[in-house]
């Protein structure tokens, strides 16, 4: 079997490039999402953005602009609801994002004539990425990386303990707002590739797999990004040969890696416990 065979096709090269970029970007942001205990936000926000995408189509706005503003507002609303009320993050995400998704579904049922396929937004279309999609993903991935690089210390402190970070002079409201903006941008860029239904997995799985492997924040970031990129690349190649949807293959590969790491670390812990017990 010639492993390079699929790379002779341009659509596959584009798809693989985007899968690697999206995998790495989601892996990077996912670390902060997981450590903030907001794993559900990727799932919810992508649904909210779907509503924004439909609205932007109906209003004839630019997709990225309309969906971007919609997603950013949804992320801010979630942050503010959690900050200013007694409602927990999971409930706020559930209410705001589902309502937003409902707007999209309602509009689809009202205006049945769509020229753009919303199947791609829901389930992803990694092999149908255009040159414009590649450029958008590359730019967003760069912006996300630059933001996290330069805000690294503030983000770390805010993620660890936002209230104490505020005491030490970190402007956590600004950090949260910028993070919401960056998250919304990353989700919009990834939505056409992985689809609303698979983004959450790409955000969460590499990060929790990395968490199982290390107790160091820096290493967790590197591992999560690495796992996201590798699974994006391998998932694409595997999907070509087993003839299964690429987005689904990437997520299944990530889930398999997580299962493997979970099994290995559990066995290691049991062995350590047994060793301690023997010595005692």
């Amino acid at each position, binding site marked *: 079997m010639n492993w390079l065979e699929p790379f002779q096709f341009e659509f596959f090269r584009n798809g693989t490039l985007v899968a690697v970029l999206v995998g790495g970007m989601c892996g990077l942001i996912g670390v902060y999402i997981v*450590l903030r205990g907001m794993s559900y936000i990727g799932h919810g926000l992508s649904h909210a953005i779907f509503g924004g995408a439909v609205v932007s189509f109906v209003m004839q706005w630019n997709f990225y602009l309309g969906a971007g503003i919609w997603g950013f507002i949804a992320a801010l609303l979630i942050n503010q609801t959690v900050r200013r009320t007694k409602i927990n993050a999971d409930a706020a995400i559930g209410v705001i994002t589902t309502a937003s998704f409902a707007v999209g579904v309602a509009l689809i049922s009202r205006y049945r004539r769509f020229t753009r396929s919303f199947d791609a937004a829901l389930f992803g279309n990694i092999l149908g990425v255009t040159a414009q999609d590649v450029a958008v993903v590359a730019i967003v991935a760069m912006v996300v990386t630059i933001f996290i690089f330069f805000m690294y210390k503030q983000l770390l*402190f805010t993620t660890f303990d936002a209230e104490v970070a505020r005491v030490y002079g970190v402007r956590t409201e600004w950090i949260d707002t910028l993070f919401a903006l960056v998250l919304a941008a990353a989700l919009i860029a990834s939505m056409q590739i992985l689809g609303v239904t698979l983004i959450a997995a790409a955000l969460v799985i590499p990060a929790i797999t990395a968490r199982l492997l290390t107790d*160091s924040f820096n290493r967790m970031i590197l591992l999560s990004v690495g796992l996201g990129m590798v699974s994006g690349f391998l998932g694409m190649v595997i999907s070509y040969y087993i003839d299964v949807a690429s987005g689904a293959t990437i997520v299944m590969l990530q889930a398999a890696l997580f299962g493997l790491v979970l099994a290995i670390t559990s066995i290691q812990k049991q062995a350590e416990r047994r060793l301690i017990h023997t010595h005692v």
Partner: protein
Amino acid sequence: MQPLIELKNIAFGYGKTPVVKDIDLHIHPGQFAALVGPSGAGKTSLLKLILGTLQPTHGQITMNGVSLQGRNKPRVGYVPQLETVDWNFPVTVGQAVLMGRIRNATLWPWPSRAERQLVAEMLDRLDLGGLINRHIRDLSGGQQQRVFLARALIAEPDILVLDEPTSGVDMRTAENVLHLLADLNQQGMTILITTHDLNAAAAHLPWVICLNRTIIAQGPPEVVFTEAILNETYQGDMLVLRHEQMIFVHQRPHGHTYHDILPNPVLGHALANATTLDSVENGTMMAEIDAMLQEQDTENQEGQNELVRTLPV
């Protein structure tokens, strides 16, 4: 002398319910003080007002004469309650301590050589040398408390604020933490803590502030820890025992005597006759009593006497 922190007629509440009111308080440079009061008395809210994370609904807070309202944040080294820390967060001792330098941080994500040296020196100063790469969960309670104290100190604060530094750790660790704070205070650091441990406050702190929504009294423990003041603060029936330089505070049980409710009669006997005990030292009464009990138990096991759980007086 100008106070370091001054609270003038401060009130704070959620909606119409006041959490604290009519608070006038001065914290002077070099002071070592404890806020004491029952749960719900407003200790944490008052602490957050001083930290600048809550804004008063009335009154003014100044630090070195400058109002803390708006964006002005005091330069505080804050040590939160250990119970509030996420111990599963993937952060090492060095990374946790380095967070204290956030005000001076550059945009570069890696610490500078000077910052790394500062962290190493601070860890050495607090007997944490060699633990820089350890995960914060893999430390003892005392070490964990000192890690967050190191983070507070490395910020070069004007004042150290600690929320319940003696809770969540064993008695010996609590003693060590208070000794360490006393040492830091001797070196000139202004320190404000909250605590539920009145006996530790009496033994270690030169100044206590009794709070129950408003300040009931403040001053040295030997002056403030009277039954009248503590009854008003805790809205209960408090017992204050004094022996030489030691003060022992306990809440009287309702409708019972100590002999009825305490785990063994000897402790009740000891409390009732505390003024006749001359072997106990500050904060060690319980340990002394335990030792005596153990001794008597041992004697009983040796068949010398039938166990009579009374304390020699």
